Protein backbone atom coordinates (compact mmCIF):
# COMPACT_ATOMS: atom_id res chain seq x y z
CA UNK A 1 0.00 0.00 0.00
CA UNK A 2 1.21 3.60 -0.10
CA UNK A 3 3.06 4.08 3.22
CA UNK A 4 3.31 7.63 4.60
CA UNK A 5 0.64 8.89 2.22
CA UNK A 6 -1.70 10.62 4.66
CA UNK A 7 -0.80 14.02 6.09
CA UNK A 8 -1.69 15.12 9.61
CA UNK A 9 -3.96 17.86 8.27
CA UNK A 10 -5.98 15.26 6.41
CA UNK A 11 -6.18 13.09 9.53
CA UNK A 12 -7.45 16.04 11.56
CA UNK A 13 -10.10 16.87 8.98
CA UNK A 14 -11.30 13.29 8.59
CA UNK A 15 -11.70 12.73 12.31
CA UNK A 16 -13.41 16.09 12.80
CA UNK A 17 -15.95 15.17 10.09
CA UNK A 18 -16.10 11.64 11.48
CA UNK A 19 -17.12 12.84 14.92
CA UNK A 20 -19.46 15.75 14.51
CA UNK A 21 -21.44 14.47 11.50
CA UNK A 22 -23.16 11.49 13.12
CA UNK A 23 -23.19 13.07 16.58
CA UNK A 24 -25.36 15.94 15.31
CA UNK A 25 -27.38 14.01 12.78
CA UNK A 26 -28.49 11.06 14.95
CA UNK A 27 -27.21 11.17 18.52
CA UNK A 28 -28.63 14.45 19.85
CA UNK A 29 -31.95 12.81 20.61
CA UNK A 30 -30.39 10.26 23.00
CA UNK A 31 -28.21 12.93 24.61
CA UNK A 32 -31.15 15.20 25.37
CA UNK A 33 -33.38 12.38 26.54
CA UNK A 34 -30.78 10.96 28.91
CA UNK A 35 -29.55 14.17 30.46
CA UNK A 36 -31.65 17.22 29.49
CA UNK A 37 -29.89 20.38 30.71
CA UNK A 38 -26.65 18.55 31.31
CA UNK A 39 -26.30 17.35 27.73
CA UNK A 40 -23.64 19.97 26.78
CA UNK A 41 -21.59 19.20 29.89
CA UNK A 42 -22.00 15.47 29.21
CA UNK A 43 -20.79 15.89 25.63
CA UNK A 44 -17.71 17.81 26.72
CA UNK A 45 -16.71 15.21 29.33
CA UNK A 46 -17.58 12.34 27.00
CA UNK A 47 -15.34 13.87 24.34
CA UNK A 48 -12.44 14.07 26.79
CA UNK A 49 -13.11 10.45 27.86
CA UNK A 50 -13.11 9.35 24.21
CA UNK A 51 -9.83 11.18 23.71
CA UNK A 52 -8.38 9.27 26.67
CA UNK A 53 -9.22 5.97 24.93
CA UNK A 54 -7.47 7.12 21.77
CA UNK A 55 -4.49 8.46 23.75
CA UNK A 56 -3.74 4.97 25.01
CA UNK A 57 -4.06 3.42 21.56
CA UNK A 58 -1.80 6.26 20.28
CA UNK A 59 0.81 5.35 22.91
CA UNK A 60 0.59 1.69 21.87
CA UNK A 61 0.95 2.58 18.21
CA UNK A 62 3.90 4.89 18.81
CA UNK A 63 5.94 1.92 19.98
CA UNK A 64 5.95 0.47 16.48
CA UNK A 65 4.81 3.28 14.15
CA UNK A 66 5.87 1.57 10.95
CA UNK A 67 4.15 -1.80 11.29
CA UNK A 68 0.49 -2.65 11.27
CA UNK A 69 -1.21 -3.37 14.59
CA UNK A 70 -2.78 -6.42 12.96
CA UNK A 71 0.70 -7.86 12.34
CA UNK A 72 2.47 -7.09 15.62
CA UNK A 73 -0.62 -7.61 17.78
CA UNK A 74 -0.07 -11.35 17.31
CA UNK A 75 3.18 -11.21 19.26
CA UNK A 76 1.61 -9.34 22.17
CA UNK A 77 -1.38 -11.52 22.95
CA UNK A 78 -0.69 -14.63 20.95
CA UNK A 79 -2.51 -15.82 17.88
CA UNK A 80 -5.50 -17.46 19.61
CA UNK A 81 -6.53 -14.28 21.44
CA UNK A 82 -5.48 -11.66 18.86
CA UNK A 83 -7.66 -12.80 15.95
CA UNK A 84 -10.94 -13.17 17.91
CA UNK A 85 -10.42 -9.68 19.36
CA UNK A 86 -9.71 -8.36 15.86
CA UNK A 87 -12.87 -10.05 14.66
CA UNK A 88 -14.79 -8.34 17.47
CA UNK A 89 -13.39 -4.93 16.50
CA UNK A 90 -14.30 -5.60 12.88
CA UNK A 91 -17.83 -6.65 13.90
CA UNK A 92 -18.33 -3.56 16.03
CA UNK A 93 -17.11 -1.38 13.16
CA UNK A 94 -19.53 -3.23 10.94
CA UNK A 95 -22.33 -2.47 13.41
CA UNK A 96 -21.36 1.24 13.50
CA UNK A 97 -21.69 1.38 9.74
CA UNK A 98 -24.92 -0.63 9.72
CA UNK A 99 -26.69 1.51 12.31
CA UNK A 100 -25.51 4.71 10.62
CA UNK A 101 -26.89 3.64 7.25
CA UNK A 102 -30.09 2.45 8.94
CA UNK A 103 -30.55 5.82 10.67
CA UNK A 104 -29.82 7.58 7.38
CA UNK A 105 -32.48 5.71 5.46
CA UNK A 106 -34.87 5.99 8.38
CA UNK A 107 -34.63 9.81 8.37
CA UNK A 108 -34.96 9.91 4.59
CA UNK A 109 -37.90 7.53 4.23
CA UNK A 110 -39.71 9.29 7.08
CA UNK A 111 -39.25 12.88 6.00
CA UNK A 112 -38.14 13.37 2.43
CA UNK A 113 -38.44 10.28 0.23
CA UNK A 114 -41.64 8.93 1.67
CA UNK A 115 -42.37 6.24 -0.88
CA UNK A 116 -38.84 5.11 -1.68
CA UNK A 117 -38.01 1.55 -0.55
CA UNK A 118 -35.13 1.39 1.92
CA UNK A 119 -33.12 -1.05 -0.20
CA UNK A 120 -32.83 1.63 -2.89
CA UNK A 121 -31.40 4.19 -0.46
CA UNK A 122 -29.09 1.63 1.17
CA UNK A 123 -27.75 0.51 -2.21
CA UNK A 124 -27.13 4.10 -3.36
CA UNK A 125 -25.27 4.83 -0.11
CA UNK A 126 -23.31 1.62 -0.56
CA UNK A 127 -22.29 2.56 -4.10
CA UNK A 128 -21.08 6.00 -3.01
CA UNK A 129 -19.11 4.69 -0.03
CA UNK A 130 -17.57 1.76 -1.88
CA UNK A 131 -16.60 4.01 -4.78
CA UNK A 132 -14.79 6.32 -2.35
CA UNK A 133 -12.90 3.54 -0.57
CA UNK A 134 -12.19 1.63 -3.78
CA UNK A 135 -9.39 4.03 -4.66
CA UNK A 136 -7.55 3.33 -1.42
CA UNK A 137 -6.81 5.16 1.81
CA UNK A 138 -5.49 8.30 0.10
CA UNK A 139 -8.87 8.88 -1.59
CA UNK A 140 -10.81 8.65 1.69
CA UNK A 141 -8.56 11.17 3.38
CA UNK A 142 -8.43 13.43 0.35
CA UNK A 143 -12.25 13.39 0.19
CA UNK A 144 -12.38 14.42 3.83
CA UNK A 145 -9.90 17.22 3.23
CA UNK A 146 -11.88 18.70 0.35
CA UNK A 147 -15.26 18.46 2.08
CA UNK A 148 -14.19 19.65 5.51
CA UNK A 149 -14.74 23.37 5.04
CA UNK A 150 -18.05 23.13 3.18
CA UNK A 151 -19.63 20.77 5.71
CA UNK A 152 -18.19 22.70 8.67
CA UNK A 153 -19.76 25.84 7.19
CA UNK A 154 -23.10 24.09 6.70
CA UNK A 155 -23.04 22.90 10.31
CA UNK A 156 -22.18 26.34 11.66
CA UNK A 157 -24.89 28.17 9.69
CA UNK A 158 -27.73 26.53 11.62
CA UNK A 159 -27.19 28.09 15.07
CA UNK A 160 -26.75 31.49 13.42
CA UNK A 161 -29.93 31.15 11.36
CA UNK A 162 -32.16 30.24 14.32
CA UNK A 163 -30.49 32.60 16.78
CA UNK A 164 -33.37 35.09 16.84
CA UNK A 165 -35.65 32.69 18.78
CA UNK A 166 -33.17 32.06 21.62
CA UNK A 167 -34.34 32.28 25.21
CA UNK A 168 -30.96 33.36 26.56
CA UNK A 169 -32.09 33.20 30.17
CA UNK A 170 -32.77 29.48 30.06
CA UNK A 171 -29.08 28.99 29.34
CA UNK A 172 -28.61 29.67 33.04
CA UNK A 173 -30.39 26.36 33.69
CA UNK A 174 -27.30 24.50 32.50
CA UNK A 175 -25.43 25.95 35.44
CA UNK A 176 -28.09 25.92 38.13
CA UNK A 177 -29.35 22.41 37.32
CA UNK A 178 -25.89 20.88 36.94
CA UNK A 179 -25.71 17.34 38.33
CA UNK A 180 -23.06 14.73 37.71
CA UNK A 181 -25.50 11.87 37.97
CA UNK A 182 -27.63 13.29 35.18
CA UNK A 183 -24.59 14.13 33.06
CA UNK A 184 -23.05 10.66 33.15
CA UNK A 185 -25.30 8.85 30.60
CA UNK A 186 -24.68 11.36 27.82
CA UNK A 187 -20.97 11.43 28.73
CA UNK A 188 -20.87 7.67 28.36
CA UNK A 189 -22.68 7.71 25.01
CA UNK A 190 -20.46 10.51 23.69
CA UNK A 191 -17.33 8.67 24.76
CA UNK A 192 -18.48 5.68 22.69
CA UNK A 193 -18.69 7.93 19.62
CA UNK A 194 -15.53 9.97 20.29
CA UNK A 195 -13.74 6.75 21.20
CA UNK A 196 -13.82 5.76 17.54
CA UNK A 197 -10.67 7.85 17.19
CA UNK A 198 -8.76 5.00 18.86
CA UNK A 199 -9.08 3.06 15.57
CA UNK A 200 -6.34 5.37 14.26
CA UNK A 201 -4.12 2.60 15.59
CA UNK A 202 -4.78 0.54 12.45
CA UNK A 203 -3.68 3.18 9.94
CA UNK A 204 -0.50 4.32 11.70
CA UNK A 205 1.91 3.17 8.95
CA UNK A 206 0.02 5.33 6.47
CA UNK A 207 0.56 8.52 8.47
CA UNK A 208 3.28 11.03 7.80
CA UNK A 209 5.06 12.31 10.97
CA UNK A 210 3.17 9.87 13.26
CA UNK A 211 4.46 11.64 16.40
CA UNK A 212 2.07 14.56 15.75
CA UNK A 213 -0.95 12.25 15.52
CA UNK A 214 -2.17 12.90 19.03
CA UNK A 215 -2.04 16.66 18.45
CA UNK A 216 -4.32 16.37 15.41
CA UNK A 217 -6.60 13.97 17.32
CA UNK A 218 -7.00 16.49 20.13
CA UNK A 219 -7.65 19.36 17.74
CA UNK A 220 -10.27 17.34 15.86
CA UNK A 221 -11.87 16.41 19.19
CA UNK A 222 -11.98 20.08 20.20
CA UNK A 223 -13.41 21.24 16.87
CA UNK A 224 -16.09 18.56 16.76
CA UNK A 225 -17.14 18.95 20.40
CA UNK A 226 -17.46 22.71 19.89
CA UNK A 227 -19.59 22.17 16.78
CA UNK A 228 -21.79 19.63 18.59
CA UNK A 229 -22.20 21.95 21.58
CA UNK A 230 -23.17 24.71 19.14
CA UNK A 231 -26.06 22.50 18.12
CA UNK A 232 -27.15 21.19 21.51
CA UNK A 233 -27.25 24.57 23.25
CA UNK A 234 -29.63 26.18 20.70
CA UNK A 235 -31.90 23.16 21.10
CA UNK A 236 -32.05 23.76 24.83
CA UNK A 237 -32.41 27.51 24.41
CA UNK A 238 -35.29 27.32 21.92
CA UNK A 239 -37.23 24.24 22.92
CA UNK A 240 -36.31 23.93 26.59
CA UNK A 241 -35.25 20.55 28.00
CA UNK A 242 -38.71 18.94 28.28
CA UNK A 243 -39.86 19.63 24.72
CA UNK A 244 -36.43 18.99 23.19
CA UNK A 245 -36.16 15.55 24.78
CA UNK A 246 -39.59 14.67 23.41
CA UNK A 247 -38.58 15.30 19.78
CA UNK A 248 -37.40 12.27 17.81
CA UNK A 249 -35.35 14.35 15.36
CA UNK A 250 -34.47 17.53 17.28
CA UNK A 251 -32.07 18.65 14.57
CA UNK A 252 -34.78 18.74 11.89
CA UNK A 253 -37.18 20.62 14.15
CA UNK A 254 -34.41 23.13 14.89
CA UNK A 255 -33.82 23.59 11.16
CA UNK A 256 -37.51 24.09 10.46
CA UNK A 257 -37.79 26.63 13.25
CA UNK A 258 -36.04 29.15 11.04
CA UNK A 259 -38.44 32.01 10.32
CA UNK A 260 -39.24 31.51 6.65
CA UNK A 261 -37.34 34.16 4.79
CA UNK A 262 -38.52 35.46 1.45
CA UNK A 263 -35.82 33.60 -0.43
CA UNK A 264 -36.17 30.10 0.99
CA UNK A 265 -38.94 28.67 3.09
CA UNK A 266 -36.77 26.07 4.82
CA UNK A 267 -33.20 25.05 4.29
CA UNK A 268 -33.29 21.56 5.70
CA UNK A 269 -33.35 19.31 2.58
CA UNK A 270 -30.24 21.09 1.29
CA UNK A 271 -28.49 20.81 4.65
CA UNK A 272 -29.48 17.14 4.96
CA UNK A 273 -27.75 16.52 1.64
CA UNK A 274 -24.58 18.18 2.98
CA UNK A 275 -24.71 15.99 6.07
CA UNK A 276 -24.93 12.86 3.96
CA UNK A 277 -21.66 13.80 2.31
CA UNK A 278 -19.84 14.02 5.66
CA UNK A 279 -21.51 10.81 6.88
CA UNK A 280 -20.35 9.02 3.72
CA UNK A 281 -16.78 10.10 4.49
CA UNK A 282 -17.08 8.65 7.99
CA UNK A 283 -18.50 5.38 6.69
CA UNK A 284 -15.75 5.31 4.07
CA UNK A 285 -13.16 5.39 6.82
CA UNK A 286 -14.95 2.62 8.75
CA UNK A 287 -15.27 0.40 5.66
CA UNK A 288 -11.57 0.95 5.04
CA UNK A 289 -10.72 -0.13 8.60
CA UNK A 290 -12.80 -3.32 8.20
CA UNK A 291 -11.25 -4.15 4.82
CA UNK A 292 -7.80 -3.49 6.30
CA UNK A 293 -8.46 -5.89 9.18
CA UNK A 294 -9.87 -8.53 6.84
CA UNK A 295 -7.05 -8.21 4.31
CA UNK A 296 -4.10 -8.05 6.66
CA UNK A 297 -5.29 -10.84 8.91
CA UNK A 298 -5.21 -13.07 5.81
CA UNK A 299 -1.73 -11.57 5.17
CA UNK A 300 -2.80 -9.86 1.97
CA UNK A 301 -1.22 -6.58 0.98
CA UNK A 302 -4.11 -5.11 -1.02
CA UNK A 303 -7.38 -4.14 0.71
CA UNK A 304 -9.15 -3.09 -2.48
CA UNK A 305 -10.82 -6.41 -3.36
CA UNK A 306 -12.62 -6.53 0.01
CA UNK A 307 -14.24 -3.10 -0.22
CA UNK A 308 -17.24 -3.94 -2.36
CA UNK A 309 -18.22 -7.18 -0.57
CA UNK A 310 -18.05 -5.48 2.84
CA UNK A 311 -20.12 -2.52 1.68
CA UNK A 312 -22.69 -4.84 0.14
CA UNK A 313 -22.92 -6.73 3.41
CA UNK A 314 -23.32 -3.46 5.34
CA UNK A 315 -26.08 -2.29 2.99
CA UNK A 316 -27.95 -5.59 3.32
CA UNK A 317 -27.31 -5.68 7.07
CA UNK A 318 -28.81 -2.24 7.46
CA UNK A 319 -32.04 -3.56 5.98
CA UNK A 320 -32.36 -6.32 8.53
CA UNK A 321 -30.73 -4.98 11.69
CA UNK A 322 -34.02 -3.93 13.28
CA UNK A 323 -37.69 -4.42 12.56
CA UNK A 324 -38.97 -1.05 13.65
CA UNK A 325 -37.99 2.38 14.87
CA UNK A 326 -38.93 1.54 18.44
CA UNK A 327 -36.75 -1.54 18.49
CA UNK A 328 -33.88 0.56 17.20
CA UNK A 329 -34.30 3.13 19.96
CA UNK A 330 -34.31 0.48 22.66
CA UNK A 331 -31.22 -1.12 21.08
CA UNK A 332 -29.35 2.17 20.98
CA UNK A 333 -29.92 2.94 24.62
CA UNK A 334 -29.85 -0.75 25.53
CA UNK A 335 -26.36 -1.96 24.71
CA UNK A 336 -25.26 -0.93 21.26
CA UNK A 337 -22.98 1.83 22.50
CA UNK A 338 -21.48 -0.43 25.14
CA UNK A 339 -20.36 -2.76 22.37
CA UNK A 340 -18.53 0.14 20.73
CA UNK A 341 -16.91 1.18 24.01
CA UNK A 342 -15.67 -2.36 24.56
CA UNK A 343 -14.26 -2.44 21.03
CA UNK A 344 -12.50 0.86 21.76
CA UNK A 345 -11.07 -0.46 25.03
CA UNK A 346 -9.37 -3.46 23.40
CA UNK A 347 -6.23 -1.45 22.47
CA UNK A 348 -5.98 -0.55 26.18
CA UNK A 349 -5.73 -4.26 26.96
CA UNK A 350 -2.97 -4.64 24.38
CA UNK A 351 -1.16 -1.64 25.84
CA UNK A 352 -1.17 -3.08 29.36
CA UNK A 353 0.03 -6.53 28.28
CA UNK A 354 2.70 -4.97 26.06
CA UNK A 355 4.07 -2.72 28.82
CA UNK A 356 4.19 -5.71 31.19
CA UNK A 357 6.10 -7.70 28.59
CA UNK A 358 8.56 -4.85 28.07
CA UNK A 359 9.12 -4.40 31.81
CA UNK A 360 9.55 -8.18 32.19
CA UNK A 361 11.93 -8.37 29.22
CA UNK A 362 14.03 -5.41 30.41
CA UNK A 363 14.26 -6.85 33.96
CA UNK A 364 15.31 -10.20 32.48
CA UNK A 365 17.90 -8.52 30.24
CA UNK A 366 19.18 -6.47 33.20
CA UNK A 367 19.40 -9.51 35.45
CA UNK A 368 21.30 -11.73 32.95
CA UNK A 369 23.85 -9.67 30.89
Amino acid sequence: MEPQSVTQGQLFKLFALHLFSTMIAFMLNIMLQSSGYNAPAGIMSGAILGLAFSFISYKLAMRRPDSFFIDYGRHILGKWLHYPLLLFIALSNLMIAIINIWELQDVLTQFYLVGTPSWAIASLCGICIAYTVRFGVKSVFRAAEGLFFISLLSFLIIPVVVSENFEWFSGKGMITQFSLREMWPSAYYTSSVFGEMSFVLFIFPFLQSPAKTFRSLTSSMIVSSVVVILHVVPLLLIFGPELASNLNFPELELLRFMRSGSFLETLDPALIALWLISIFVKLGFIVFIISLILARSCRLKDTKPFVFPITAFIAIGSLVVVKSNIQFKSMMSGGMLTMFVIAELIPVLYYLVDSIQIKYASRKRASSP
Partner: protein
Amino acid sequence: MIMILIVYLTIGIAELRYLRREKRKKRTFVILIVSLTLLLLLSEVLYAVRTSFQISVWIEALFGPIDSWLIDG
Protein backbone atom coordinates in the same frame (compact mmCIF):
# COMPACT_ATOMS: atom_id res chain seq x y z
CA MET B 1 -33.26 -12.95 -2.01
CA ILE B 2 -32.33 -13.16 -5.67
CA MET B 3 -31.30 -9.52 -5.68
CA ILE B 4 -28.71 -10.27 -2.98
CA LEU B 5 -27.40 -13.16 -5.07
CA ILE B 6 -27.14 -10.95 -8.16
CA VAL B 7 -25.35 -8.24 -6.22
CA TYR B 8 -22.77 -10.65 -4.82
CA LEU B 9 -22.29 -12.32 -8.21
CA THR B 10 -21.57 -9.04 -10.01
CA ILE B 11 -19.17 -8.00 -7.24
CA GLY B 12 -17.47 -11.41 -7.36
CA ILE B 13 -17.00 -11.27 -11.14
CA ALA B 14 -15.67 -7.72 -11.03
CA GLU B 15 -13.24 -8.48 -8.20
CA LEU B 16 -11.99 -11.72 -9.75
CA ARG B 17 -11.37 -9.95 -13.04
CA TYR B 18 -9.50 -7.25 -11.09
CA LEU B 19 -7.36 -9.89 -9.35
CA ARG B 20 -6.65 -11.68 -12.62
CA ARG B 21 -5.53 -8.46 -14.24
CA GLU B 22 -3.34 -7.64 -11.26
CA LYS B 23 -1.96 -11.18 -11.58
CA ARG B 24 -2.25 -12.00 -7.88
CA LYS B 25 -1.30 -15.32 -6.34
CA LYS B 26 -3.78 -18.18 -6.31
CA ARG B 27 -4.08 -17.86 -2.54
CA THR B 28 -5.67 -14.41 -2.92
CA PHE B 29 -8.28 -15.81 -5.28
CA VAL B 30 -9.18 -18.52 -2.78
CA ILE B 31 -9.43 -16.05 0.12
CA LEU B 32 -11.64 -13.73 -1.89
CA ILE B 33 -13.98 -16.49 -3.03
CA VAL B 34 -14.25 -17.93 0.50
CA SER B 35 -15.02 -14.58 2.08
CA LEU B 36 -17.51 -13.75 -0.66
CA THR B 37 -19.45 -16.99 -0.16
CA LEU B 38 -19.35 -16.50 3.62
CA LEU B 39 -20.76 -12.98 3.32
CA LEU B 40 -23.34 -14.18 0.79
CA LEU B 41 -24.55 -17.00 3.06
CA LEU B 42 -24.62 -14.73 6.09
CA SER B 43 -26.64 -12.03 4.34
CA GLU B 44 -29.03 -14.58 2.82
CA VAL B 45 -29.64 -16.13 6.23
CA LEU B 46 -30.08 -12.75 7.88
CA TYR B 47 -32.45 -11.68 5.12
CA ALA B 48 -34.44 -14.89 5.36
CA VAL B 49 -35.09 -14.66 9.09
CA ARG B 50 -35.43 -10.90 9.18
CA THR B 51 -39.01 -10.95 10.48
CA SER B 52 -38.41 -13.30 13.37
CA PHE B 53 -34.83 -12.55 14.37
CA GLN B 54 -32.87 -9.28 14.22
CA ILE B 55 -29.26 -8.59 15.09
CA SER B 56 -30.43 -6.06 17.65
CA VAL B 57 -31.97 -8.86 19.71
CA TRP B 58 -28.52 -10.36 20.28
CA ILE B 59 -26.88 -7.06 20.98
CA GLU B 60 -29.43 -6.11 23.62
CA ALA B 61 -29.12 -9.56 25.17
CA LEU B 62 -25.29 -9.47 25.24
CA PHE B 63 -24.57 -5.87 26.13
CA GLY B 64 -27.82 -4.77 27.72
CA PRO B 65 -26.98 -5.70 31.32
CA ILE B 66 -23.51 -4.09 31.15
CA ASP B 67 -25.07 -0.95 29.72
CA SER B 68 -27.80 -0.67 32.34
CA TRP B 69 -25.32 -1.44 35.12
CA LEU B 70 -23.03 1.32 33.87
CA ILE B 71 -25.75 3.89 33.31
CA ASP B 72 -28.02 3.34 36.29
CA GLY B 73 -25.58 1.52 38.60
